[in-house]
């Protein structure tokens, strides 16, 4: 998966649950869980919302790593 995210790390640092984070950015707990697992890549709007909650930038939360095999 070339997109690495630190959502779980930041969420645990902020001591908030997936449901609470979901409520904060008006999305479901399932979506937060999928983002953390790397199963779902959020839209720009949702990424900005999450970054705003954690007081950080989108680039810090989501990092794109070039796949060497490509």
């Amino acid at each position, binding site marked *: 998966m070339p997109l690495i995210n630190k959502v779980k790390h930041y969420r645990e640092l902020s001591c908030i*649950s*997936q*449901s609470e984070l979901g409520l904060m950015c*008006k*999305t*479901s*707990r*399932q*979506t937060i*869980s*999928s983002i953390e697992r790397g199963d*779902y890549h*959020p*839209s720009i709007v*949702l990424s900005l919302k999450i970054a705003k909650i954690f007081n950080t930038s989108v680039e810090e939360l989501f990092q794109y790593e070039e796949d060497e095999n490509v």
Partner: protein
Amino acid sequence: MYKKLKPLINILVLMIITVIVASIVMTLLIMSNNTKAINTLQKISFFAPMLLLFLSVISFISHFYFRYHIKKDNYSQEENSYFTTHEQVWSVISGYLCEICIILNITFMGLNYNSIFHEIYPTISIYNSYAFYIIVFLCFTIECLNSNLQKKMRPELNSDITSVNYNNDIFNKMDEMEKKQIGEAAYRSFVFLTNIYVFTILFALYLIIVFDIDTIIVLPVGFLWVSHMLTFYYNNYKLEKKKKHKNKGETI
């Protein structure tokens, strides 16, 4: 090499499946004459409502079992909670099973129509009629209970189950991931159903030729196929139009 040959392999596999299915049907037809085949189908449909009744009762009980455990877990939705670990099982047993039961119930009611209303087998017919109404009642109750539980677990998806726009309402209230997931599932279903319509219409033609059944059976299949395609293209067009309007509004 495999990628280049993949379309050919797919066609070959489809041809083999078609030949196998056709040979099974032909063997069955040779083994029994037309009336026997129809009688067997009707006999199966006689006992099917009892099986469906059993399945809908399981679905009904499983709903309460699941509800009891969620309540015990204080309606928690955290990771590794009862709800998150059993949500999929619940949706299959209590949701999809109940919907399948109601669809098959109506189908078998149609197959049993002659024997119920012309009273060929009065005793079984009475039991089947009772089973029909009990299944309808159970499935509707499960749907209401599921919707009620969903309101508790996901208040943001709150919608009136008796409303005609219930499904649209729920979809509009879903978040981006759920919408994307449902969109993908719907598209795959569309593609799958398009293939199913081809086989169904061919099967209907085959039934007309072999069983000498009324040609009218092709009409509902054709109508469904056309309406299926038109609804897809119409909704695509509507979404495209909506996007254009939105873009115009933003530039102004």
